[in-house]
């Protein structure tokens, strides 16, 4: 492979890392903002109580429980961050595709909400696995969601599923409109083609432009096929 391609891939890896980290930091900060207000409210209530004002004592428990709720939400985000951080631990492994997609969808929840769209998972009847680089797959699925969000139809719901294909897997993102080939990438995602090329993957759009398909070959399966 040309050295320029590896540079492009590295650039895209770092950019994706930056995007996801920024989204996570934003989400955690929002939880902190709520917790901060709730703590302030508890202080306000106790000050008012000390001043002899009539305060419903139940409010302390209710508001404290809300703090615990926010902690729970933040913990979920932190778990995602930790999983994301560890997705670069191994460069090649057998991956449960639906599970990985579910993880990326969780990472993209806030981005989708900002675009006023919802991300849904389409349940696949059986387990679909692929032998690949987990971080690369996360990037491609993430960028697929980016493309989908900029082409979502009026129902504003992107449904994502995966199916086994002859030589690998096909990830399908439905609920789109006007998507045509060649697939256009936003300016910031110009390095995605290098990653596709590295994996031997490609994008296709369905004839009416209502779905985006991401086809990824399972190189292990392919090489096993050749030796068989």
């Amino acid at each position: 492979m040309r050295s320029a391609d590896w540079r492009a891939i590295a650039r895209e890896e770092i950019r994706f890392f930056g995007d996801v980290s920024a989204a996570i930091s934003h989400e955690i900060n929002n939880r902190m903002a709520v917790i901060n207000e709730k703590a302030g409210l508890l202080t306000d209530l106790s000050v008012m109580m000390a001043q002899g004002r009539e305060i419903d004592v139940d409010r302390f428990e209710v508001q404290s429980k809300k703090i615990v709720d926010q902690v729970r939400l933040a913990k979920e985000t932190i778990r995602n961050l930790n999983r994301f951080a560890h997705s670069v631990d191994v460069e090649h492994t057998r991956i449960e595709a639906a599970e990985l997609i579910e993880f990326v969808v969780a990472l993209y929840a806030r981005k989708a909400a900002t675009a006023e769209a919802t991300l849904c998972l389409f349940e696949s009847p059986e387990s679909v696995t692929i032998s690949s680089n987990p971080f690369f797959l996360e990037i491609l699925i993430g960028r697929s969601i980016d493309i989908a969000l900029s082409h979502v139809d009026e129902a504003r719901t992107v449904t994502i599923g995966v199916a086994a294909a002859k030589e690998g897997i096909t990830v399908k993102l439905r609920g789109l409109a006007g998507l045509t080939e060649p697939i256009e990438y936003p300016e910031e995602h110009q390095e995605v083609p290098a990653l596709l090329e590295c994996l031997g993957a490609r994008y296709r759009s369905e004839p009416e432009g209502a779905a985006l398909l991401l086809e990824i070959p399972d190189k292990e399966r392919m090489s096993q096929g050749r030796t068989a």
Partner: protein
Amino acid sequence: MKVLLVDDEEELVTALAERLSFRGIDADWSTSGNEALKLARAHTYDVAVLDIKMPNISGIDLKKRLEKMRPDMKYIFLTGHGSEEDFRAGSAEASQYLVKPLDIEVLIETMREVVEP
């Protein structure tokens, strides 16, 4: 039940100790391995709740040293995240581990299970 709490985060460990005492559980706390060893030398505890990652000593190493002193004491590990290494370390030690932030009810239940199985 008498408990020894060890975590380098003072705000956490003091809040835990206080909340346990409100619930009728006698809890001593320390923020370092050395203090923990001193306390264990001076008092008998049913269970020690140890943070896995501390600046000067790991929870697991601290457990090894405490075991020599108090062979009957039981252990629970606290971890910041359920990462692979922590799980493996915890199960290698055949100990219970809990992920922070803690749920105090879960902590108490786990302590009871470990002390009176």
